[in-house]
C-alpha cells in the first residue's frame, strides 16, 4: 500500500474554449493513485469527474477542450508530453477504462471473441496459446458463465451484466497498471451491481492494478474504495481514507453528500438535499465554490479560495473551517 504512486495527477486544468467564454471544467485537480489501491472520485454530475479521466487519457471530447496546465505522471512519465503515437501505446495497455453503459460499449457487429482478440493480440503472453484459448481464459477470469460458448456470441445475445463483464475482460486483457472505471455499475441491475463490484475488487488485487473509480454513489464508495477524493466544481475539496471520510468528514460539501445517502438500518424521513446549484463553470467565484450553498459560510469564504490543509493522516480538505 505504501508503494510509490503509479498515477499522479498534479494541478490539472482542462478548459473548454467556447465562443461565449472559457469553461473551467477541471480547474486544478491533484491526486495520486498507488498500485493495488482503489481511489474513489466522487461528486455530482458535471463536477468534472469524467473529464478528469478523459484528460488523463488525453481523449478530450471536442476540439474546444484543452488541458492547459498540470501534469499526469504514469510511473513518473508525463503523459501530457507524449506524442499521439506514444499515447496510443499507453491507452489500453497501461491504462484501461470501463464506461458506464454496457449496451453501447461493445461493437454490435463483432463477436465477443473477436473483440477480445483485438485486445489480446496486442500483448502476446508467450505461452503460444491461441487467441481463442486466451479469450476463454480471460472471460473465465471475469466469471462469465460458459465462456467457451460466449466467444462465438454477439453482444445482443448477452445481458447487460454479462456485457459489462466482457468490457471488464477487454480492459484487463492487457494487464494494465491503472484502470479507470467511470460509473461502471450505474447502468446495471442492483443485484448485478454488487457482484460486479466484488469482481472488480478481486481483479484489482490479483493484478495489482490501481483503480480510479468514478462515481456519485457513496454506497459504492464505501464498498469499493480505499481512499476517496471528493470533487466539486472542477476541484477536489476533500481527500482521505474512506473510513476517515465517512467517520469524520470535514468539508461541508462532503458532509452534505454523506447526509444525502439513504441508510438502510435507520428510518430516515425525507433525504436531505443540498440547496442551490453549483456555480457556473464559466464564471467561477474568487472564493470557495461551495460558499453559496454552504450553511457555515463566512466572509473569508467569499474572498479567497481555501488551500488544502491536512486534517488527519493523509486526510486533507479545502475549507477555511478546517484550518
Amino acid at each position: 500500500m505504501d508503494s510509490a504512486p503509479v498515477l499522479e495527477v498534479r494541478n490539472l486544468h482542462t478548459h473548454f474554449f467556447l465562443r461565449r467564454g472559457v469553461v473551467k471544467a477541471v480547474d486544478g485537480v491533484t491526486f495520486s493513485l498507488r498500485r493495488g489501491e482503489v481511489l474513489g472520485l466522487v461528486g455530482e454530475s458535471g463536477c468534472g469527474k469524467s473529464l478528469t479521466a478523459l484528460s488523463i487519457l488525453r481523449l478530450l471530447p471536442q476540439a474546444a477542450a484543452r488541458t492547459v496546465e498540470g501534469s499526469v505522471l504514469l510511473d513518473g512519465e508525463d503523459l501530457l508530453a507524449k506524442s499521439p503515437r506514444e499515447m496510443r501505446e499507453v491507452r489500453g495497455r497501461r491504462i484501461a477504462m470501463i464506461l458506464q453503459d454496457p449496451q453501447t460499449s461493445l461493437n454490435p457487429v463483432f463477436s465477443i471473441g473477436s473483440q477480445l482478440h483485438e485486445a489480446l493480440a496486442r500483448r502476446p503472453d508467450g505461452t503460444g496459446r491461441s487467441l481463442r484459448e486466451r479469450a476463454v481464459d480471460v472471460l473465465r477470469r471475469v466469471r462469465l458463465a460458459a465462456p467457451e460458448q460466449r466467444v462465438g456470441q454477439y453482444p445482443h445475445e448477452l445481458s447487460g451484466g454479462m456485457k459489462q463483464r466482457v468490457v471488464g475482460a477487454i480492459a484487463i486483457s492487457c494487464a494494465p497498471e491503472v484502470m479507470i472505471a467511470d460509473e461502471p455499475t450505474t447502468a446495471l441491475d442492483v443485484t448485478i451491481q454488487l457482484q460486479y463490484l466484488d469482481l472488480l475488487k478481486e481483479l484489482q488485487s490479483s493484478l495489482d492494478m490501481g483503480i480510479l473509480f468514478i462515481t456519485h454513489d457513496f454506497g459504492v464508495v464505501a464498498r469499493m474504495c480505499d481512499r476517496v477524493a471528493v470533487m466539486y466544481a472542477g476541484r477536489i475539496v476533500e481527500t482521505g481514507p474512506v473510513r476517515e471520510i465517512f467517520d469524520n468528514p470535514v468539508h461541508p460539501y462532503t458532509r452534505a453528500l454523506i447526509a444525502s445517502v439513504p441508510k438502510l438500518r435507520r428510518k430516515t424521513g425525507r433525504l436531505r438535499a443540498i440547496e442551490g446549484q453549483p456555480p457556473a463553470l464559466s464564471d467561477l467565484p474568487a472564493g470557495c465554490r461551495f460558499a453559496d450553498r454552504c450553511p457555515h459560510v463566512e466572509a473569508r469564504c467569499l474572498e479567497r479560495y481555501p488551500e488544502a490543509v491536512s486534517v488527519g493522516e493523509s486526510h486533507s480538505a479545502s475549507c477555511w473551517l478546517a484550518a
Partner: protein
Amino acid sequence: MRRLPLASFAIIGTMIFVAVFAPWLTPHSPIDQSLPDKLLPPFWEEGGTTEYLLGTDIFGRDLLTRLFYGARVSLIVTALALTAGGGIGLVLGIVSGYVGGKLDAFLMRVVDAAFAFPTILFALLLAVTMGQGMDTLVIALSLFLWAGFARVIRGEVLAIKQRDFVALARVHGSSPARIMFVHILPNVLNTFMVLLTLNVGVIIVAEASLSFLGAGVPPPTPSWGLMVAEGRGKITSAWWLSLIPGIAITLVVLSFNLFGDWLRDRLDPKLRQL
C-alpha cells in the same frame, strides 16, 4: 414485415441470367445486320416469325438479342458506377462524419454543390470532351452518385461515433483510421447495401436517358436507352422498336425499387423516410 417480393426477384434474376448467358441464349448477333429481315414485327403480329420472337429493327437485328446484350451494358454500367460512386461516397461519408469539424463542413458543402449540378448536362459535356463510351458514362454517373451516399453515411456515422464502443476503441489505443474502417465501417454496411439497391433503378434510368440523348454508349452497342431512341422515328409504324425496350426498363427498375424497399425494411427500419 413486408412480404418477399417474388416477382421482383424473378425479374431481376432473369435480367442477370440473360445478361450473363446472352451469347448462348440466342442464335443471332446483336450487331450484324440482316437487311432482308428488317422491321419484322413480333411473332404474334401479322407477318412476324418465330425466328425473331420480338421482331427486328431497321437493320434487321433481332430485338430480343439486342435486349439481352443491352441488359449486359446496363448491369456493367450500374455495377461500375455503384462501385466507384458508392465506394467514394462511403469512404468520404465515414471520414467526414468521424473527423468532423472543418473537413466535415467542407465536404458537406461539396456534396451540396454536387447535388446542385445538373447531371445530364455534365454527362453531355463529358461525352463531348472525352468522347462517348462506357467509361465516360460510368464517370458521369459516379460523380452524380457519391454525394447522396456520402450524405446518408455521414449521418449514420455521426450517430455511431457517439456510442461507447468507439470511445472504448480509442481508450484501447486504436488509431483513427482503424476506428473508422474496422469499428465503424461494418456498422454502416446495412445502410450502404440499402442505398446500393435503391440506386440501381436510378442508375439504369440515368444510363438509358443518357444513351437516349446520345451521351451514353455509342451505337451499334445495344443499350436499352439507345434502342428506345433508335425506334423513336418509327413509333407509328413499328411500335415494338421503342416500346419493348421501354417496358424492359420499366419492369427492371420497378423490380429493383421493390427489392430495395424490401431490403430497407428488413435491414434498417430507421431508413424508412428515405
